[in-house]
């Protein structure tokens, strides 16, 4: 069990232990009170001792061993059912049948202990099943079924079910809290790193990059390479990681694509979209940029623009490469060669967005993707 969940589960298990001890005390008093009427008094004392010893053992186990609880709970159930079933031998026939006068079975409410433990350990289904098991043995020990026994059964099963629900909900809440805390710590650490790297490495690399065009040959090439690293580092720290909400900042994700050949223009505020949409739009942008790199020649530059219109987000990718005759594009698609156009069109169609392609010989290529958004302006 992970450290974080033990934190929330520990008090619940403490509750299980306290409940067990109190119900054991009640069972012992009940046995003492009804002892005179027992068919087998000696066996009654043995059962009393059994309840006392098992309570001590299982409480110690629940308190100190956090690892093998499922086996312990099953063993607990078997021991409890055995003691409960022994009522059939110990109690006299009158005591067993006079349900109206409420002579309880030897184990009385103590028998609900394993139900509570199972619910805390494994949730509502386990809680309810354990409740059924105890109810069945209850009926078997009595040897008949009445409305009173039905009420007991419903209480047992219901308790297991509801407590299981509560335990699962508590565990989930605790895990979520832990995740959020960790994300917060990670963000703080990332910001600290970003500040520190910005003040040192990025400054030097940017300077090297700015000098690149005055250096010749290998030195110039090295300077340009160093410059690429500067852009990559800066963008890495500028991008926001996917949040717990399933939304991500499209602007931050696209800025990772900036390079000396690619300029990315975005608003100062985040452009939140579902993470899956962000991934697809980034993939579309990558394909368009890769296409420029393949066909645009070494000097071609690209620009990426993100606009948040509230109801929709507009992504524009343009290059100043040679451009394509639109007849060629259509021809390529008709010939079954999907190519970049088909791939981008496919992705955009899957997104439910619209695509406009503006290109022509000598005009460069401009892709415009418009994605409608259900909820405008969140996380501003």
């Amino acid at each position, binding site marked *: 069990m992970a450290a974080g969940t033990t934190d929330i589960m520990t008090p619940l298990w403490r509750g299980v232990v306290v409940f067990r001890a109190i119900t054991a005390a009640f069972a012992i008093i009940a046995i003492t009170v009804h002892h005179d009427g027992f068919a087998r008094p000696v066996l009654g004392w043995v059962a009393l001792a059994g309840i006392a010893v098992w309570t001590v053992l299982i409480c110690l186990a629940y308190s100190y061993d956090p690892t093998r609880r499922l086996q312990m709970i099953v063993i607990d159930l078997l021991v409890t059912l055995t003691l409960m079933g022994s009522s059939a031998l110990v109690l006299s026939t009158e005591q067993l049948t006079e349900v109206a006068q409420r002579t309880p079975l030897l184990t009385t409410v103590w028998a609900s202990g394993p139900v509570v433990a199972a619910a805390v350990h494994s949730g509502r289904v386990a809680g309810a099943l354990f409740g059924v098991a105890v109810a069945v043995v209850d009926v078997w020990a009595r040897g008949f079924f009445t409305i009173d026994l039905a009420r007991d059964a419903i209480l047992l099963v219901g308790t297991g079910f509801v407590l299981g629900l509560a335990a699962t909900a508590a565990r989930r809440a605790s895990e979520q809290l832990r995740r959020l805390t960790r994300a917060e710590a990670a963000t703080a650490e990332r910001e600290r790193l970003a500040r520190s790297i910005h003040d040192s490495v990025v400054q030097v690399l940017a300077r090297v990059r700015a000098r690149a*065009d005055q250096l010749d040959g290998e030195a110039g090439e090295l300077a340009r390479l160093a410059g690429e690293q500067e852009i990559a580092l800066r963008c890495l720290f500028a991008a926001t990681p996917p949040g717990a909400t399933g939304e991500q900042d499209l602007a931050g994700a696209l800025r990772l694509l900036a390079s000396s050949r690619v300029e990315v223009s975005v608003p100062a505020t985040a452009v939140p979209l579902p993470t899956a949409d962000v991934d697809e739009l980034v993939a579309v942008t990558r394909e368009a940029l890769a296409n420029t790199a393949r066909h645009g020649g070494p000097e071609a530059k690209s620009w990426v623009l993100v*606009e*948040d219109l509230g109801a929709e987000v507009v992504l524009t990718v343009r290059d100043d490469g040679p451009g394509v005759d639109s007849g060629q594009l259509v021809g390529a698609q008709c010939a079954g060669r999907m190519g970049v156009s088909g791939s981008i069109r496919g992705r955009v169609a899957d997104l439910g967005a619209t695509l406009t392609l503006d290109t022509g010989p000598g005009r460069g290529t401009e892709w415009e993707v418009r994605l409608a958004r259900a909820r405008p302006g969140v996380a501003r």
Partner: protein
Amino acid sequence: MTDSRGDAVTDSRGDAVTDRRGDGRSATRVMVVDDHPIWRDGVARDLGERGFEVVATAVDGAAALRIIAAVRPDVVLMDLHFGSAGPSGADTTRCIIDRWPDIKVLVLSASGAHADVLAAVQGGASGYLMKSASLDELVDAVRRTAEGDAVFTAGLAGLLLGEYRRMALDRERDAPRLTERETEVLRQVAIGHTARQIAEALVISHRTVENHVQSTLRKLQLHNRVELARYAIEHGLTQ
């Protein structure tokens, strides 16, 4: 002038006032504000070699504000983040433009912190350049800034578009709006078109394109000043 971090706190040893009057009176006077020594000294040297007169360097905004009145530069090259406490680059820009409206501020930022760039531009900066820009781009930008032009990069156009749209979406009170033409021009700049290309595409003059671009920046700066003034009056901050 060695490292700046400690100096910036204790003393402004990094603030070197280099007055080289006499031979270069007509040269554009530049002040470089940057906490990073490699940048401060490197940019100062580069600009000096290209015929600018670097009249001062400062390690942070506070140091810049202390000496600016004495050196009266034409253009301030402003970094946005300083390691020291005190005013940020955006705050310093606002102070400079408020007190010396004829001094031009050009933001030179390594950070991708777009919100800070936007704040500096709203505070009156004439434009912004990434530190990764080449020396030729920097020289061109300083020259154009000195002439009173806005240095409009694609990135800045994207930022301004985003800000106008944010104000429209948030239904901000008395927020300036872009005309359709201005929006179109800004979009074209943001996807890398030059003023000449835009002029051709929209069948307008090159000057008209420049005017549209300047107007988008001015409206935003004016709105920002009005908002600040209103805030000051509402909160009783005026003398």
